[in-house]
Structures are given as C-alpha cells and as structure tokens.
C-alpha cells in the first residue's frame, strides 16, 4: 500500500493544480442569494465551460462519450485539488453529472446518449431527480406515479417530492409505475421527462437550512415520448440501482473535504470564542472533542482512498463502482461524523451559537457555515438512503443477516 502519488498521478496533480489556480482566480464569487436560481445556474455553467475547455468535464466518463476517462485515483486527485483551490462543486449539475450522465452511458440508447451527453458535459442541461414520492421515501419501490402508454407516448400522473433543482431543470430522471399489476419492483420504468412538457407544476419546499433547493412536483397527464424510456419497460428498478451505484461512489468526496476544512476552521474559531477569562481552546475537553472529530474525518478520508482503490481494481479495466460494503460504511459513518462535528460546533460556540450568518461587531466570528453545516448533517443522514437504510444494506447484503421481508 502507498499513499503518495505514482509518477503519472503526480504529473496529473500538478497539471490540475496549475490549471485550477488560474481558472479559479478570475471566476468571481458564487451568487450571494442561494435562491437566485438563474444566477446559480449561470455561475455553475461558467465553471462547467471552463472544465470542458480544459478537458476536465466528465472527468471519470469514458472517452467514447466525451469524458476524460480518468482513473478513479485521478478523479479523487481532481476532487482533492478542487477543494483545496476553493473551486466550485457540481452545483446545479449534481443530478446531470452524477446520476443522469452515468446512467445513460450504462443503460441509455445510442440516440439518448448522442443527444444528452454533450449537453450535460457542456453544462447546457440541468437535470433533477424524480424518484421519491410523498408515499415512497425509504420504501422507494412503493412509488405510485403512473405512466400509461398511449401510442408512442407515456401519459404520466402523480407527484414527486425532494426534487432538487426542479426550478432550473431541463430534464427529470423520472421513476414511474408502468405495470401496476406486477410485483412492486417489476412494474417500474426509468424515463427522461423534459421539464417544459405541459402538466408539470413545481412548488418550492424550504429546507431547515433556509434554502429552497427542494421542490414538490405535481404531474397531471404529462406526455413523454416512449423513446425516452431508459432500459426496458418495467426494468426501471434495476436501472435506478445503477443510478444509485454512481451516487454512492465518490459523490461525497468533496463534501468530506469541505467538512475537514470546517474542522480546521472550528479549531481557529475556538481560539477566538471567549470562555471565562480565556478562550474555548483553553478548555482541554474542547480540544479533545475537536481532535476526536477531526480524527473521525481523517479516518473517513482513509476509507475514501480505500474505496477508490477498490473501485480501481487491478487498474486494467478503468475501474468500476465502489463496492456496497465500502460505500454504505462510508455514507453511514460520514453522516455520524458530521452530526458529531455539529455537536462539537455547538459546544465550541456555546452562547454565541446564534446565527446562520457570520457574526460581526462586538463578537467577530465566521461561524455561519459552521452552523449551516450542523443542519446539513441531516441532509447526509437522510438523503440518498437514510442511515437506517444504509444499516439494513450493510446487515443484509454484507453481513448476510436475514432480509426485512
């Protein structure tokens, strides 16, 4: 085992670092208003164009589909250097880049790929995820949104929820029930739904973080061409699992690196938060708490490297998905560590834990992102398979214990 870069990885890192330094320097700040979707989209697109011009768009996608064909290790290096340089993350392109693109590469038709992949790579299309429903959260296979075939179209009626980026999305990856008579998992299909189709009503849902990234989406006899089916009709559950396999890979790497930066920031804040006649940092209990949570995050960085090494296999096949054991162990442990970081944050800030913005004036503390992070921990322990679902996955698929039903 080794942690240092190989010669070629080292060259790649230097190349990425040099490019990022220039590309980030004149990008300008991200839009201040998180609910200004037009501005967010424009900002993220500007960055995506730069990525594409430099050959970093679709970094882990195969070359045949316009990607760079980077190894999992190179992908990790790219994410690490991007975090260090303060480069934007995927932003509004999260679903298009991490879900839709890889799913179309794996399961789409040549026509679907030829149409969508270039738009995704160029940052011209934004996708949203239409999987969860009010009655189908953790029990996703219980989804009820119906798609009825009518000639060469599907007519879709139902409702979706937690539809991130729905306000700016051009397309939706939509799970629908196409055979209500079949067993739950065998009557589902995966469809590409253009968001400008008549009959789509999107309503904002404000999250506990204060943003309106979420939406509810009501579908009233929305017509979608049958050729928008990805995979076979009624084979959508399997396609959805393919989609998830990408999400549970390196989707949280940037998040983790940002959390490690939060832990460093928290240590700096602790030295400024007044406590008695000294500072919070002078309390050994506080130092140990900060050190413990930093150790947890460091350990997750090690697990990330292990997962990436596993995905890389023996290095001959360009890499595969992160195995379930490592992916779910990471997701579960990362959620726990983030909640722990949140608890330590509250203890450090103590009576100054009062604002989701930075404090200025009498008490000058850059605490905004720290308290936001404390709330964001719930996104990690609930989204993309709750911690309870991750525990079921580990217990049943890895430890071999009996299935729930």
């Amino acid at each position, binding site marked *: *085992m*080794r*942690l*240092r*870069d*190989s010669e070629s*990885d080292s060259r790649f890192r230097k190349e990425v670092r040099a490019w990022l330094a220039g590309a980030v320097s004149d990008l300008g700040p991200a839009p201040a208003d998180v609910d200004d979707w037009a501005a967010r989209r424009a900002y993220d697109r500007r960055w995506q164009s730069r990525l594409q011009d430099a050959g970093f768009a679709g970094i882990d996608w195969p070359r045949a589909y316009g990607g760079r064909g980077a190894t999992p*290790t190179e992908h*990790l290096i790219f994410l690490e250097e991007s975090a260090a340089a303060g480069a934007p993350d995927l932003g509004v392109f999260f679903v298009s880049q991490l879900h839709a693109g890889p799913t179309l590469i794996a399961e789409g038709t040549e026509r679907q790929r030829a149409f969508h992949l270039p738009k995704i790579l160029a940052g011209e299309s934004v996708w949203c995820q239409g999987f969860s429903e009010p009655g189908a959260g953790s029990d996703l296979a219980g989804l009820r949104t119906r798609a009825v075939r009518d000639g060469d179209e599907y007519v879709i009626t139902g409702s979706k929820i937690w539809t991130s980026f729905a306000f700016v999305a051009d397309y939706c990856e939509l799970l629908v029930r196409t055979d209500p008579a079949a067993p739950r998992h065998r009557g589902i299909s995966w469809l590409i739904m253009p968001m400008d189709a008549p009959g789509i009503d999107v309503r904002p849902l404000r999250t506990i973080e204060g943003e309106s990234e979420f939406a509810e989406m009501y579908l009233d006899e929305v017509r979608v061409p049958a050729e928008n089916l990805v995979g076979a009709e009624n084979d959508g559950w399997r396609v959805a699992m393919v989609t998830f396999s990408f999400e549970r890979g390196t989707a949280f790497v940037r998040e983790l690196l940002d959390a490690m930066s939060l*832990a*460093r920031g928290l*240590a*700096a804040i602790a*030295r400024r938060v007044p406590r008695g006649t000294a500072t919070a*940092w002078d309390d*050994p209990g506080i*130092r*140990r*708490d*900060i*050190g*413990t949570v*930093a*150790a*947890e995050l*460091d*350990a*997750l*960085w*090690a*697990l990330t*490297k*292990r997962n*990436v*090494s*596993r995905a*890389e296999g023996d290095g001959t096949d360009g890499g595969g998905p992160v195995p379930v*054991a*490592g992916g*779910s*162990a990471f997701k*579960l*442990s990362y959620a726990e560590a983030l909640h722990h970081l949140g608890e330590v944050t509250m203890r450090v800030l103590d009576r100054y834990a009062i604002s989701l913005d930075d404090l200025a004036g009498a008490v000058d503390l850059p605490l905004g992102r720290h308290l936001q992070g404390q709330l964001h921990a719930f996104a990690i322990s609930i989204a993309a398979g709750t911690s*309870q679902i*991750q*525990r*079921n*996955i*580990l*217990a*049943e698929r*890895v*430890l*071999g*214990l*009996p*299935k*729930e039903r």
Partner: protein
Amino acid sequence: MRLELDDDQRALQASVRALCAEHFPLERTRTWTDRDSFDRRAWRTLAELGTFVMTRSADEGGAELATVDAGLVYQVLGAELVPGPLVAAALASDLIDEVGTGQLLATVVERPADGQPAVLRHLGLVDVVLVLDAAGIWRVEPADVDARPVTSPLDPTTPVWLATRLPQGERVGDAALAARWRQRGDVLTSALLAGIAVKVIEVAVAYAAQREQFGRVIGGFQAVKHLLADGFARAEVARAAVDAAAVTIDEPGGGPDGTAAARAVAGARVVAARAAVANSKTAIQVHGGMGFTWEATPHLYLKRAWLEENVFTTPDEAAELVARTLTAGEAA
C-alpha cells in the same frame, strides 16, 4: 495512491490466522494467566514465522516488509486475542535478537513522572524490561523492579504489575529510537485494536445468525441488525485509518517529527480504540445473557480493548495531538 490489501498481504494475514488457530486457540489462551501457564513454545512458533522482525532487514533476520504489513499481521493477532507482549516484542527485537526469535520475552514501559507508579504488563513472564524516557531507552532486569502483581487484572489474559519506581537501568537506545518506538508502538497497538473491532463483530454476527427468539433468528430484527451494521462500519473506518497511518510513517517525512505522520498515527489511535471498545460492547449486548457470562468470549475482547487503548498514547492524549495539528503554524 493505493490503500487496499494486495494478494500477498491477504495471504500473509491468512497464514498468521492459521497459525493462531493451531497454536493460540482462545479456549486455551484464556487460561495462560501466568509464567507457568503461558505456552512459550507457541510463542516461539509465532516468532519463527518472523512476526516480530517483519520490518527488519534480511541481514538482521527480517523480511524487509513495510510497517503496514506488520500492522496487518497485528490486526490478526488482535482479532485472535493472542496473549503475551506482542508489541514489545516487535520493538525490542530492534535491540535484542533473542526477542525477535522468541527465545526471550520483553516488556516496554514509559518511565512515569517522578513519584508516579509504573504499570508493567507481563512482568512475571519477561526476561527483560525496556524503559522509555526523554533520554532514550533503558534496559532493566525484571528482578530489579520492585513491583507487586495486580491480583485481579481487568484483562484476565494480560497480567499486570504496579511498580513504585523503576531503576535507571543501562542505556541501550537513544532518544530518537525511543521516539520511533512510541510511534510504531502506537501503530501496532492500534492495529491490535482494529483487529478486535473487526473480529468481535464477526463473532456477534455468527451468534445473531443462529440464536432464535420469538421464532426467528435475532439477526433478523432491525434493532440487532443496526447494532451490527454500526459495528461493521466502525471497524471498516478503523482499519482504513490504521493502514493509512502505517503507510504514512513509512513514506518520506513520516518520522516521529513529521506533522502528517503524527496526525495520522494519533487519529488512528482515537478511532481504533473507540471502535474496539464500542464493538466489543455491541458483541456482549448481542449475545444477551450469554454475553454476560465468563465462559462466553465477548468480554475477553472488551477487556483486552480496554487495556490496549491506554498503552503508549491514550485516546485522550491522541485527540489532543490531532487537535494541535489543526492549528499548527498559528501562535500557541
């Protein structure tokens, strides 16, 4: 970067596991509580595999393996609850060849601050005591240590002694070697703990998969499954951290003075100690009433974990070390 075991490393672990199954089965080792009961022949068999000299050069009888390989082997030794001064053997073999070959046993102890008692493990068993302090490493004869045995040791398979003071002894290593021993001692101890964290969940899963209540195996209940899944995740995180720490100290800048290595080693210490203790508790809980009995094995893992977590750098000290690396470069 590559942080996954290769086929050679898996084979190395398998051969150590097989040797342990033959020579250190738990039903026997749990009675090796003193000099008379401790099986020195089994110990020598373990030594002859090269267990204690893996990282030494071929000239010195070693296998020229990396610290991470030693860590992988020590994860197996932890998992199999092998008794005896394992970490001390790997350190002391730097100075005393007969410790590496298993002919002599050694214990390593940090010299406490003036007036504080020293805790010596395996004192009645060993042929040499090596004392670490700021000035270096000091050799002391066991007979010269004024110590009394702890009559009811927390870990029944690790006898311990309390000494009111340690003789100065003969200086056999410099301060730099002492610092490297502390670092390797931390990594190998963390490896033992990570091994416990992994194994004890395997033991509990096997029990949960066959123990029936309410007409079904208890491993089918979410309340039990989730305990075990948490344990599995903790163990995965811990062994990744331990392997990464071991790799870090072998790479350039990985000496005891390097910040990255200090942080990785201390962080692994924190995570591995917690995983071993938490997972052992999980295993006792999953075993229910059986887990509360002396005859069942889970309590042995917990007690070993409790003992090992406080050898070399304690989790509290390690957490503090990690915290200090976060603000390195800023004024104290």
